[in-house]
């Protein structure tokens, strides 16, 4: 077997080339190296559940969105160390219309009272304080309603479904169900608004103590069901989810 004698310049795996003519690297012009067609690097995407859900639901970067797919900043206290939030869902924005209309009406109440001359008998300072008080009440009403909507979230992680709800700013409700114990998922869309704006209720039946988790007034219930099914059908997610 022929072996190259110039062991300083070749690697062990290089093909053996018999070169009998000595070359001077300082005098000779540099030769162009032959172009080698390296195979292009092809990225291989693994079928991750978050990517699949991304495909189902699309994405938005707005923090007010009803769907937050694979959010970077979103987090909750009960999350385990290696648990990944795949989807956070809020109620459809249309449910906020009621309190928004009430707020707008409340803003005009002082004007209506002024027109009716109800407070005219009181001194100006009293009227001013009454107006100020009313506007503060209006603000806190709207603020509370907004917080109620904003922090009422349903979360899909790679391990479980989570329902976090704050009632009247004082009570916190937390419910969870492992994805492995989900039995049935159903949805219902009711009423003219529900049909028109495509929002409804998703009912998740589980085999755990909390036998059902209800996603109320969520947009695109069919997409949420698909996302849950995707999580259920991902063996990788179920087996390694919290251990990666």
């Amino acid at each position, binding site marked *: 077997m022929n072996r190259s004698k110039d062991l300083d310049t070749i690697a062990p795996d290089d093909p053996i080339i018999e070169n009998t003519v000595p070359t001077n690297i300082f005098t000779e012009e540099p030769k162009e190296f032959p172009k080698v067609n390296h195979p292009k690097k092809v990225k291989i995407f693994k079928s991750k559940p978050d990517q699949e859900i991304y495909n189902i639901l699309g994405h938005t970067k707005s923090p*007010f969105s009803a769907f937050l797919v694979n959010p970077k900043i*979103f987090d909750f*206290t009960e999350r385990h160390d290696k648990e990944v939030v795949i989807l956070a869902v809020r109620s459809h924005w249309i449910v906020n219309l009621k309190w928004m209309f009430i707020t707008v009406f409340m803003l005009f109440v002082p004007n209506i009272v002024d027109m009716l001359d109800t407070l005219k008998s009181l001194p100006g300072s*009293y009227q001013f304080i009454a107006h*100020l008080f009313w506007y*503060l009440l209006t603000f806190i009403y709207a*603020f509370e309603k907004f*917080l109620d909507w*904003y922090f009422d979230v349903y979360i899909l992680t790679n391990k479980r479904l989570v329902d976090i709800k704050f009632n009247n*700013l004082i009570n916190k409700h937390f419910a969870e169900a492992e994805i492995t114990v989900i039995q049935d998922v159903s949805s219902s869309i009711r009423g003219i608004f529900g049909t028109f704006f495509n929002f409804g209720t998703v009912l998740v039946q589980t085999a755990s103590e909390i036998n059902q988790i209800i996603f109320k007034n969520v947009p695109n219930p069919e997409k949420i069901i698909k996302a849950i099914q995707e999580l259920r059908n991902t063996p990788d997610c179920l087996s390694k989810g919290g251990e990666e």
Partner: protein
Amino acid sequence: MNIDINNLMPLFLTVLKIFFIACSLFYLIFSLIVVKQVTSMTKNVKDKFNSILISFSFIHLAAAAILVFMIIVLL
């Protein structure tokens, strides 16, 4: 028995002032609870908008405190 409304007005205003002070103090306590709750909520669920919500709750607290001050000073 004749009741003079003009004599009753200062009494009514005094009662109203006490009522306003009591309400505003309760409201101040309530706004403190709101701050506490918003902070607690934002700790429980972390999101992009949380800092702004906390700011709103503190602004509301400040407004409630100003209201108490104004009631005491103006009325």
